[in-house]
């Protein structure tokens, strides 16, 4: 009987302790909820001043042949490699009549993989745009019979940097190609002669066994010399002209390509 009484007393004591702890915790939480607003200090912020910065504008650097477009324009030209070739273009300080550079433009232009380079300036002239002719010299290549690819780059260095590019493929004075002729009884040779100071140029055409030239062609008829045994002829052809000569094939099924045309 006594033990039961002691147990009840002990249980009551523990219950009282728990209530006391819970009460304290609730009171502390309430107190903290009121005290959080006191974490502060003086803070002052202000805009001291604002500025508008503008860059020098009205900059235009253009060309008649070169461009800054991602796709570089390609120009096919022919040249008689008896002398160095000259690539001519214009650099301008305007885009159109309403968009003209107000400041001097300093530039350099180069031709690569081989060629000369120049430095220059384009001075402003009021509201009128200025253009400057630029000539770059390309020396005679080691193999004048093969097309030469030259990339021309013009870069402005002041006031801003802008790069213009153009690709020039310089074909030799005498170039030729034989069209695909598989399955055809004839093969067609196309000879291209570049513009030159002389009106005519001697050209030697040679062909391998397996075909014979069209004997009615003016190229053959007017040939200065012809050797059907060794399959070669030399003739004078006009410059700045394109000629075609047909070869009759022994075997139409094959692709006959063994023809050459060179400047004599």
């Amino acid at each position, binding site marked *: 009987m006594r033990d039961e009484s002691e147990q009840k007393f002990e249980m009551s004591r523990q219950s009282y302790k728990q209530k006391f702890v819970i009460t304290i915790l609730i009171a502390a939480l309430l107190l903290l909820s009121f005290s959080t607003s006191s974490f502060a200090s003086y803070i002052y912020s202000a805009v001291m001043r604002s500025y508008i910065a503008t860059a*020098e504008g009205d900059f235009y650097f253009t060309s008649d042949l070169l461009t800054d477009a991602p796709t570089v324009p390609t120009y096919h030209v022919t040249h008689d490699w008896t002398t160095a070739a000259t690539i001519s273009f214009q650099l301008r300080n305007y885009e159109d009549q309403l968009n003209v550079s107000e400041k001097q433009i300093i530039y350099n232009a180069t031709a690569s993989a081989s060629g000369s380079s120049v430095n220059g300036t384009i001075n402003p002239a009021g509201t009128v745009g200025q253009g400057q002719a630029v000539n770059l010299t390309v020396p005679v290549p080691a193999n004048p019979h093969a097309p030469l690819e030259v990339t021309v780059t013009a870069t402005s260095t002041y006031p801003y940097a802008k790069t213009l590019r153009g690709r020039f493929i310089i074909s030799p004075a005498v170039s030729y190609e034989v069209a695909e002729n598989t399955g055809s009884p004839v093969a067609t040779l196309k000879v291209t002669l570049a513009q030159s100071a002389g009106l005519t140029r001697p050209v030697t055409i040679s062909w391998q066994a397996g075909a014979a030239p069209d004997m009615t062609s003016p190229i053959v008829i007017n040939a200065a010399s012809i050797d059907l045994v060794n399959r070669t002829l030399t003739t004078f052809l006009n410059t700045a002209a394109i000629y075609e000569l047909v070869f009759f094939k022994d075997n139409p099924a094959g692709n006959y390509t063994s023809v050459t045309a060179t400047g004599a």
Partner: protein
Amino acid sequence: MKIKRWYQYLTYMFIVSLVFTGVSFSRFSSVINNTGAENTGSPGSPDEPGIEFSTWALEHQAAAVSLENLEPGDVKTIAIWVKNKNSAGTVSGYNQKVTLELTTTGNLPLEFTLHKTDGTPVALAHPDPYRYTSEGQMFTANTGETKTFVLTITWPAGSRDYMYANEIDYIELKLKAVQA
């Protein structure tokens, strides 16, 4: 029984509040100086106790500089001063930590450096491409001081892309002072 328990809660809260409400986490502080005799004279009389409260004071200025028609290679400077006293000459009664902040749109490739007028460089943090923040400059309470700086704006000569032509940048110079 339940009402008694709630009375106990309120009593505990009251006691705990009495203990803690005197404690403040605030960093505001004021010095009150009683320079006169206490409990003498009537209000408004010369014998009234003179009570002085601390003053928060800060003044600043950044020079107006034209940043128009900038070109690659251009350098511009902006003079700045900050002082911990007001126009009436009252010195701030609080320690202050002053930070200069600069925001830019980043449209132009401008570079910013800050130094004191004696040439001492002031570190400028660059947390993101559009913001520069100086290291804190300390002002001591009740010690009048004027700090002068020069902000240098540089357009690197190597950044000449023609896409910058006709471009506009908006630059804002801010100041932030915190009670130290």
